[in-house]
């Protein structure tokens, strides 16, 4: 039987998924604590033993192994641009879509103290942007010079004004910097172009970063590491929405991934205005957009979730359970491996999940503003209008283990009339019950049709 082993080196768990390609079935899933600090292969072997245990009676052979990784802090990046709302924002969006963790976003001409700060945050890759094509080039050249001088050890991807490329190339060559020139993230004003840079980031991740994180040496055993884990989730979302060469996609959708440290939202949608007569403002949004809320999480970020939401908002979702909300959130952020032990504690987790979904989607979607002008009310939209998306898909531990995942996910929908936030109105709700989104994103790199059909089959309506 032709079986594929999909591996996700997470920061806490190494997760394995075995897929039967012919029957298009998930054969087994297993996980074991990650051992990146010591020897990454230990955790893998433990998880593999658990997986093989489940597959004892099934004759199988893994003909292919594919891996993604968010181990050792994930792919840590710094985004640099010129104007904060324009090229710096475009650079950030490009890096997020490539599955990176953004350590910081910088703009204008940088100085030495900022360089020191960047150095101390220990990025894996720096994305250097600035200027439209034919626009400002002084800023990006200045920043390239400073990077070459002060941070020669960090690889750089250049995604800025094409007129500055030659000069930047010669600066970097002189200092022997590891760099790669890509396309401009904002070639024309307010027009975003993230795909080429995302592809370059992925290449650099495969070629350089994997090695730096000590994963390269085990590639013989585990197969090729293809991308950072969040990029795999975005890929799965994209395959599901757009379909493949053979399969018709589901249409525009949003994926919410509620984790222990962050809540990620992925939208695959153009986000064009639903209402007529609305003017669009600001920088264009990517069709496949990922946003990461570093302050919204179930454990590590439980305290910051309380700080962001406030007790009242969390209480709204608590029906029976009585808790000191502030105290419980603080406690959970200190005990990151705590599992709920009573129905009340389960309810508390669900309330936190609902709040995370509500706020993360609110931050992800666009805003409709009305302005009173001498010609009457004029509406302008900043960001994506996601009111009419067809599906909202949930993934992450709290949803998988909850008895009411539908309630948690519906917290992200539009509730009030005339709310300025362009949140989904009435999508169908699906749950990634078997936790296969990232594995299917990986599989889709090689077998998109099978990955699409397996996803469609295993996502449950809630």
């Amino acid at each position: 039987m032709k079986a594929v082993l999909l591996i996700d080196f997470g920061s806490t768990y190494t997760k394995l998924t075995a897929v039967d390609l012919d029957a298009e079935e998930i054969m087994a899933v297993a996980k074991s604590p990650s051992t990146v600090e010591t020897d990454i292969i230990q955790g893998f072997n433990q998880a593999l033993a658990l997986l093989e245990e489940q597959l004892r009676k099934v004759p199988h052979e893994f003909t292919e192994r594919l891996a993604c990784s968010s181990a050792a802090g994930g792919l840590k990046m710094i985004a640099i641009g010129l104007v904060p709302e324009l090229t710096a924002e475009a650079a950030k969006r490009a890096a997020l879509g490539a599955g990176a963790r953004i350590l910081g976003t910088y703009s204008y001409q940088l100085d030495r103290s900022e360089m020191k700060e960047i150095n101390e945050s220990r990025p894996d890759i720096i994305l250097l942007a600035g200027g439209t094509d034919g626009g400002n080039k002084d800023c990006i050249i200045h920043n390239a010079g400073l990077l070459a001088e002060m941070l020669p050890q960090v690889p750089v991807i250049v995604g800025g004004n094409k007129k500055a490329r030659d000069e930047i190339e010669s600066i970097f060559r002189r200092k022997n910097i590891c760099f790669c020139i890509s396309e401009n993230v904002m070639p024309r004003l307010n027009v975003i172009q993230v795909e080429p840079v995302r592809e370059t980031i992925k290449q650099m991740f495969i070629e350089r970063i994997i090695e730096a994180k000590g994963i390269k040496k085990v590639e013989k055993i585990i197969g090729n590491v293809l991308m950072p884990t969040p990029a795999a989730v975005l890929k799965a979302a994209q395959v599901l929405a757009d379909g493949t060469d053979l399969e018709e996609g589901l249409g525009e959708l949003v994926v919410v991934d509620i984790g222990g440290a962050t809540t990620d939202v992925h939208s695959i949608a153009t986000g064009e205005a639903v209402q007529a007569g609305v003017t669009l403002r600001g920088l264009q949004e990517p069709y496949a957009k990922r946003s990461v809320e570093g302050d919204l999480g179930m454990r590590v970020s439980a305290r910051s979730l309380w700080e962001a939401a406030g007790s009242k908002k969390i209480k709204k979702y608590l029906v029976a359970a009585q808790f000191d909300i502030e105290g419980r959130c603080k406690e959970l952020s200190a005990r990151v491996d705590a599992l709920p032990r009573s129905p009340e504690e389960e309810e508390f987790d669900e309330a936190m999940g609902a709040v995370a979904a509500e706020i993360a989607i609110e931050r992800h979607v666009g805003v409709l503003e009305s302005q009173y002008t001498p010609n009457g009310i004029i509406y302008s939209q900043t960001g994506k209008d996601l009111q009419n998306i067809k599906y909202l898909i949930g993934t992450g531990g709290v949803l998988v283990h909850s008895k009411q995942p539908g309630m948690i996910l519906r917290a992200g929908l539009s509730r009030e009339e005339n709310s300025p936030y362009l949140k989904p109105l009435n999508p169908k709700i699906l749950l990634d019950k078997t936790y296969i989104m990232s594995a299917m994103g990986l599989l889709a790199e090689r077998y998109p049709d099978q990955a699409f059909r397996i996803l469609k089959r295993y996502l449950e309506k809630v």
Partner: protein
Amino acid sequence: MKKTIVLGVIGADCHAVGNKILDFSLSSAGFEVINIGVMNTQEEFINAATETNAQAIWVSSLYGHGEIDCRGFRQKCEEAGLQDMLLYVGGNLVVGKQEWEQVEKRFKDMGFNRVYPPGTNPVEAIKDLEKDLQTKVK
């Protein structure tokens, strides 16, 4: 090399026709036009000019509130590092019927290089722009 001009309508003003005419005229005259359209804040003009390395900003206003919308524009340009930016403004700039000389003076005092009344032929302003750009180079 083509000179880059940022063009747009300021404030809560959504009059788009004149904006299209100016875009067409400037483009035909050989300029690279960065048209940011209607309903823009001062910051949006300045950000656009910064990223695109523009030589001039053309501000339109038709709805009569241009005077309030344009206050402090020059100062913000200077703050943003656009020291010798050419600032042009034109249209129905003030409320009601007022003496043109006074209006022009008020906008020049605000730091605009050129001020145009309603009904100005774009060709006239483009001629001024070419002249101003030449002196700027010197």
